[in-house]
């Protein structure tokens, strides 16, 4: 292991670091948050070495540091949310999670194919990345579960000799200011595939305009009565689409009222699903918000199968995220699709139909 003092020595430090990285070695380098561990994230042997140093458990993903947005886009797909964050907040102490393009070694991206990316606001690192022409890993230089390292002494305080031997080069910039670790922001939840017209052909399509929250609730009440009168012997799904603030929760409050539910129907976003017991016409009323699900299959993880029994009414907000699963249920369920749009500050357009 070699230690280079960074002060007045930047270009030498960069050259030595690149030599180590190219050979698949590990460097310890300073950033604006704390000391980081760098290896070439596309080199499997180097990544394996890093994982054995960190004593990572299971499949904890590793972020990468890039010099700029252009370099980032070689490794991840940036959606609108990510692009704006890059523009306004990077370089800086943020790790932005996007969909990975699968160009890194095993163990770097997460098991759901996402990748954390940083653009450190630290001159030395930027110059190093530019010259190296590739990302380096951006994980803190401590062993998993140990304290954040702000000096070389911090790193060594909890490290065994065997682990120290894995490090090839340390770029020592002295004691770093105690800034918090980078803030992690996940942008992948915003990749909602809104159904295009024609994806789902609705029968008996209707369109109404409501002019207040109260009217949206009343629409929900009428819809519930309509569904009760059908006396179906299969589960009913109300698939709701509509951006924030279109009144999805209000509609559900109306539905619940007609079902005789006395409890306050509140947003299910945090717990994904809220369950209510219905006295007469149905057994149970499930109110789901699946915005936070990344893969549609995760619907099964939150107990969807158990919900699909006769005389249950299931309302799914952000149903477009699971449209394929809902479509595949076919004739075993009765589905009403509802699209809600803003018309003006108080007016909402509600389009609905059976699938």
């Amino acid at each position, binding site marked *: 292991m070699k230690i280079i003092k960074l002060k007045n020595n930047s270009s030498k430090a960069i050259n030595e670091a690149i030599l180590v990285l190219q050979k698949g070695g590990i460097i310890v380098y300073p950033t604006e948050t704390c000391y980081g561990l760098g290896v070439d994230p596309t080199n499997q042997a180097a990544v394996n070495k890093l994982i054995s140093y960190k004593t990572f458990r299971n499949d904890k993903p590793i972020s990468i540091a890039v010099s700029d947005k252009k370099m980032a886009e070689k490794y991840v797909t940036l959606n609108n949310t990510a692009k704006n964050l890059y523009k306004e907040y990077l370089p800086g102490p943020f790790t932005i999670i996007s969909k990975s393009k699968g160009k890194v070694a095993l163990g770097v991206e997460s098991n759901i194919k996402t990748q954390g990316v940083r653009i450190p606001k630290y001159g030395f690192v930027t110059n190093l990345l530019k010259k190296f022409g590739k990302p380096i890993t951006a994980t803190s230089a401590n062993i998993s579960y140990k304290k954040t390292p702000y000096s070389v002494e911090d790193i060594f305080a909890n490290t065994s000799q065997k682990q120290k031997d894995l490090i090839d080069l340390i770029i020592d910039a002295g004691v770093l200011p105690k800034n918090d670790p980078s803030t992690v922001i*996940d942008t992948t939840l915003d990749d909602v595939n809104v159904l295009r017209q024609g994806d789902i052909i609705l029968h008996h399509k209707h369109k109404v305009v409501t002019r207040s929250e109260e009217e949206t609730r009343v629409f929900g009440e009428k819809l519930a009565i309509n569904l009760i009168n059908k006396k179906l012997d299969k589960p009913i799904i109300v698939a709701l689409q509509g951006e*924030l*603030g279109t009144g999805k929760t209000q509609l559900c409050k109306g539905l619940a009222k007609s079902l005789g539910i006395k409890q306050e129907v509140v947003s299910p976003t*945090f717990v994904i699903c809220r369950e209510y017991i219905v006295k007469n016409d149905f057994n149970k009323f499930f109110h789901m918000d699946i915005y*936070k699900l990344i893969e549609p299959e995760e619907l099964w993880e939150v107990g969807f199968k158990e919900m699909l029994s006769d005389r249950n009414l299931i309302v799914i907000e952000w149903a477009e995220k699971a449209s394929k699963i809902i479509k595949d249920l076919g004739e075993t369920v009765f589905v009403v699709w509802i699209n809600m749009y803003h018309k003006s500050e108080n007016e909402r357009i509600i389009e609905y139909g059976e699938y």
Partner: protein
Amino acid sequence: MKILAIETSCDDTCAAVLDNDRVLSSVVSTQVEFHKKFGGVVPGIARDKHKEFIDPCIEKALKQAKVTMEKIDYIAVTYGPGLAIALEVGLKKAQALSLEYKKKLIPVNHLEGHALSPFLKDKNGKLYSKVKLNFPFISMIISGGHTELVLVSDFGKYELIGQTLDDAAGEAFDKVARLLKLGYPGGPLISKVAETGDRNKYLLPKPMLKSADFNFSFSGVKTACLVALRKIYAEKNINSNEKLILTQNDPGYYDSKDMVFTKKEIADFAASFEKTMVDILVTKLLAATKKYGVKYVSIGGGVCANNYLRKTMREAFSKKGVIVSIPDKRFCTDNAGMIGIVGYYKGLRKEFSKDPSKVERDPILNFKSG
């Protein structure tokens, strides 16, 4: 009395060891992880992470407290409210330990934990919150999943006096962050960017501020934010004063997901929104202290880590002669210390579960209203 406490209601895996009301150790998985919530929002992943962290967390809590499992008297565990499949991990672990070591199990309501967190002491017996609370007091619990006002008249005596009718306070932060394209989780980021913003730049409505009850509606604030942001965006992008909000098929329609804002707009909007939220919370809590004639209040839940809220609360309540207890930040967010202290007081009252294997999770558990 030595208590091992376990909490897995959301995405933090937590374990703590208490000696009566003194915290000997309190371990939160995210404290020791470099990447906090890397994808941990997805239920399946949250569960997998809990399964991964629960054993090392408990091990570490016992080790730090220098207590072995044999010396533990009771096991306290959160059984609700929270994410069903996350709660299950902690509960099953607690049940298994209770069986293996023949320890009594105390199921704990997560919200009661927040309500009693002002009573937590460090290992030398000093109150973390530095302020001694007397009964009765009102506890305001505000987080990603909760907005509750609870009248606490004694240990174990709670009455729900107000709650949200739609979105939780922290959820409003997350959803407005979503509108501002700040990713997830957006709440902490809103507070961060708000620091440099102009809190009076945008005027937002405060629903239910003057209602006679102590309920909240944050969905209305969120919708007002969307409308305001549409106007800001449209004014930049449409020259004429044509109708701003149309349906998806009309020209000139902006879906909220297509709108992006500048750093300055984001900072000013975040600051104005944060001020609106804090005004609503503080005004309602003040009104509740007046109605119930209490001289003490406390706050708990993740949103209490918000610096602007802490500062505004201190100022507003000291003017009115109400003593406010604001917990140390690490006991605001989810932790097992607060579950342990509920366990301690329940232990004193001998409120154990008769058959630990029969305890079931309750994702929508709450206090009873009066």
